[in-house]
């Protein structure tokens, strides 16, 4: 049976692009989420858009569940396939089709790696701002399907703010076009809006049209150190209240500071309770003004120390500490569960307080860092998945983290998506009506339920 299946796909994508050995199947059974793997029947790697369309059509005809996989770095189980399904690899669909400087847009295939794309854009004097921490490996298709965000989300928005249009395959292998290369376009329904964040459940992306912007002319970074958590979050609120929108406004708790310092010796104050990393950018004069104002606000509210980067080297140092956060935490224990519960930014102190209590209650180590400016925190639970007793406590703690986030008016996911990891919480946030609506929508577009089944809404 599986031999027969391989043959069918080999006819479409060629012999070397069907991966069906035991080893290959195990290699496409997991992603970056801490969830049990599930074995697909095979993985296929189309090299042309036409082949991609035919693969989708064939899966539908055979009623085979299909999961598209970019780089498999999502943290919510979005690329864990259905048992016995087909994994479609986008790695060979990796062309940057166009970068248009005059009209400031680009067209890419879905397997293009984010950082490579951003670098190509930068070479032409333009800027593609979304910068997920995984950008060195994540793909544009994965970014759009997860609506990925990054450090610059506060000022520049997330992936959805840059998707101008796309083409995608529906389950019958028909190519659907939506949006355009123009800044304004209201032709037809906003289907590309629907595709952003759809996690591979509504269609398989082919080409994506992305908005580009001019890069900021100047930037200034600083690090503010606090001996009190309340003061740090008050500072966040005060900066925004002063009508300053920094490009980045990052937070680190005391545990993370200590761990980063132990690991990277970045010169962080290990007795601090919290740390804010702030960068303003834009026109040079405005940057000077805003940096001074931010510094004044930090001082007024009670930062014990402020370190303003004098040049690119010092700026890099500030960011090195932030970049080291996950690395440092990940080394403490074997398993790292990175969550992304998000709350309105005024609720950060409440959220952080709750996280401390949860850590205590379940006897767990949790380090928290993240995007304070947009309320997107990354409580990072350090554990060992082999310790079943402890891991059960981890799961209970995660349940509680989401309960708290929702009770504070927050959301389940700021950027990592729902996938399989959080589908069971969905109803708590959006209610039964929304789930039913989404399910009816999916049933209409994908009657055999082959497109990444089990993700977002469960079934």
């Amino acid at each position, binding site marked *: 049976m599986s031999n027969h299946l391989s043959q069918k796909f080999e006819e479409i994508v060629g012999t070397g692009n069907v*991966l069906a*050995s*035991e*080893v*290959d199947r*195990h*290699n*496409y059974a*997991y*992603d*970056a*989420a*801490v969830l049990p*793997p599930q074995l697909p029947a095979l993985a296929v*790697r189309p090299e042309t858009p036409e082949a991609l369309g035919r693969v989708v059509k064939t899966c539908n005809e055979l009623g085979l569940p299909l999961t598209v996989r970019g*780089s*498999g*770095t999502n943290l919510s189980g979005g690329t864990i396939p259905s048992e016995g399904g087909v994994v479609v*690899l986008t*790695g*060979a669909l990796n062309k940057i089709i166009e970068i248009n400087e005059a009209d400031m847009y680009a067209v890419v295939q879905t397997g293009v790696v984010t*950082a490579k794309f951003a670098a190509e854009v930068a070479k032409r004097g333009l800027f593609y701002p979304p910068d997920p921490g*995984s950008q*060195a*490996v994540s793909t544009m298709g994965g970014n759009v399907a997860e609506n990925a965000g990054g450090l610059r989300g506060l000022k520049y928005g997330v992936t959805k703010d840059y998707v101008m249009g796309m083409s995608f395959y529906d389950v019958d292998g028909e190519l659907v076009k939506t949006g355009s290369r123009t800044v304004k376009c209201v032709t037809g329904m906003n289907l590309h809006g629907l595709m952003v964040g759809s996690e591979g459940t509504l269609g398989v992306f082919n080409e994506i049209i992305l908005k580009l912007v001019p890069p900021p002319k100047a930037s200034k970074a600083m690090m503010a150190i606090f001996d009190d958590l309340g003061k740090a979050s008050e500072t966040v609120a005060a900066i925004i209240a002063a009508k300053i929108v920094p490009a980045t406004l990052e937070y680190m708790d005391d545990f993370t500071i200590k761990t980063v310092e132990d690991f990277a010796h970045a010169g962080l104050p290990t007795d601090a309770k919290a740390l804010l990393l702030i960068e303003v950018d834009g026109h040079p004069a405005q940057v000077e003004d805003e940096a001074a104002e931010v510094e004044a606000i930090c001082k007024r509210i009670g930062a014990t120390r402020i370190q303003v980067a004098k040049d690119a080297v010092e700026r890099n140092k500030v960011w090195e500490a932030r970049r080291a956060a*996950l*690395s440092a935490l*990940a*080394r403490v224990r*074997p*398993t*790292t569960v990175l969550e992304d519960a998000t709350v309105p930014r005024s609720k950060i102190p409440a959220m952080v307080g709750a996280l401390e209590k949860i850590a205590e209650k379940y006897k767990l180590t949790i380090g928290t860092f993240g995007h304070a400016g947009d309320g997107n925190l990354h409580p990072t639970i350090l554990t*060992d*998945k*082999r310790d079943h007793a402890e891991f059960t406590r981890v799961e209970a703690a995660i349940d509680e983290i989401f309960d708290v986030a929702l009770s504070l008016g927050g959301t389940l996911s700021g950027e990592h998506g729902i996938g399989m990891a959080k589908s069971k919480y969905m109803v708590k946030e959006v209610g039964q009506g929304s789930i039913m609506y989404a399910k009816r929508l999916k049933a209409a577009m994908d009657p055999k339920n082959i497109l990444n089944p089990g993700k977002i809404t469960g079934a």
Partner: protein
Amino acid sequence: MSEMRQLVGLLKQIDDQLVACMRCGMCQAVCPIYAETGLEGHVARGKIALLECLADEVIKDPAGVKERLDACLLCGSCQANCPSGVKALDIFLKARAFLTGYYGLPPVKRAIFRGLLQNPKLFDTVLGVASKFQGLFTKPVNDMLGSSCARVFSDLIGGRHFAPLADKPLHDVATQRDTPRGHSGLKIAFFYGCVVDKMFPRIGEAVLKVCDHHGVGVFMPHAQACCGIPALSSGDRETFEKLVALNMKVFAESDFDVLVTPCATCTSTIKKIWPLMAEDLPATTRYQVKELSAKVKDISAFLIQDVGVTPADVAVSGEPVTVTYHDPCHLKKSLGVSAEPRALIGCNPRYKLQEMDGADSCCGSGGSFTLQHYDLSKRIGKRKRDNIVATGATVAATSCPACMLQIGDMLSQAGDTLAIRHPVEIYAETLAGR
């Protein structure tokens, strides 16, 4: 099936190292093999996942796992870039040893490792004889590079343009020596390594010349054995341990300050892998191995850091020679040495260093990887070649003779006429008496 049990048991030993991988996938950004094939099984995350599956007995196909594991350059890029601090190289070396224990060594490797490597004298003799006859089987193709290609054995070496065995290996042109500390007050033990000895004796001669010039005493025994990495990376731990023991006998008791090698691979093997794999050796040997491995240094690092060589005062006439430098993975990624070789090149005012794109990306050699996966190795090497040629340099320099072989092959096949040099050769040119 009981052997399978044993294999599973062995894999369980490295369970703690395996679980440290959080499957983030960041290793995809740096793995040269993954860059070519895009296959999950060819990147660290994929291999580690497979080893876990094997240990958990959910995979029944150790051969398939071994095949993926073998498709690895052991370049350490993944380890250097891993946020979680996964010791990928330790994992891969140990796992290869386990799997080789399970399958046994292929006969050819068995003959070479157990028959030749373990008997350095015999090894020298056999290759000595071979060097006399190689002209019958190969024809020179590129005078500048000094490469040849096979006339007869093309099946065996697959169209490679390889550097021929030297007419006379280093151990023939330079007698063993044990010279006292001179005005530098320093004394080295010189571990020349197989490839320098047999293919690039001129590098060894340059080392000796530089040491003599700077008053560095040299202990250079000829009884030294291979560093063991070819055997270990093929999973032959037994041969590896024998080779370490042979070397310990020669070096452990001697008097010197630094163990110097002109080979990035030997340096990193002695520094990192000897102590790592010495865990099972008797306590005294383990201690000796640690002592020795603490003393090992790359020749450029030694000359810059310890001897303190400075730019030579030689007359410069005409245009400087443009040279570009390739960072061997084993030197930069494993040991963090990248400034010193460049500084050493900079000590010859006749040369101008022109950096290439991706100077520290792997050249695709990876020891026996290139033998088993020549096609892949060539694709990776081709990128390196293109980057080298794009600099307009007439000399490509690097600190690892294995990289020199690979880069030489790539340049030669493309018909380029660059010379390939070791930084120490470039520096040695400035010394009097040339």
